[in-house]
């Protein structure tokens, strides 16, 4: 099996994308709601990723 070498950002992006798909599919009742929720969770993942990333950068000094 080939080895996958990803940066922190790439791995977190891939994780967010795949988790958002599943969370969108299993959560709501209509396809429209599922799509919106999937996008919403992906945006939340991205905000957390960049927010916590900047916090760590600034906190590190």
């Amino acid at each position, binding site marked *: 099996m080939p080895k996958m070498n990803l940066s*922190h950002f790439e791995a977190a992006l891939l994780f967010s994308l795949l988790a958002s798909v599943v969370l969108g599919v299993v959560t709501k009742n209509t396809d429209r709601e599922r799509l919106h929720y999937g996008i919403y969770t992906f945006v939340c993942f991205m905000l957390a990723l960049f927010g916590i990333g900047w916090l760590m950068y600034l906190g590190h000094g």
Partner: protein
Amino acid sequence: MASEKNQKAPVEMRAWAPVIALGWLVPGGGHLLLKRTGRGVLLLVAITAMFLCGLMMRGTMFTPQGDDLLTVLINWGGWLGDFCGGILYLMAIWLGYAQPDVAGHVHDYGTKFLVTAGLLNVLAMVDAFEIARGKKS
């Protein structure tokens, strides 16, 4: 009389047990069994992709062991997460996947990908269970 009619009959176990079993074995399998093809395929692709990425990142599979409470919690919890991956976990073990725990962010992400794939499969199983019981469409 009217209240008796309004009461929902309990859904028999044989209606949802195969859905749960197939949902565990094959990610999205419960949805496919219930003719929710689109959602089933999406779950199958997303969960399988997450598990395969975990393998390609050389993530570690947990084994149920440990001495102190924290180690037991981490190892048993991690193993349970891995095990919920169903056939993906079983195939990886049967084919001899045994990655030692090594340092490095890629390996660490891989371990998390493997566990999360199993946990997302649990969510898919719960969703399939609710569909089988008629609580969701």
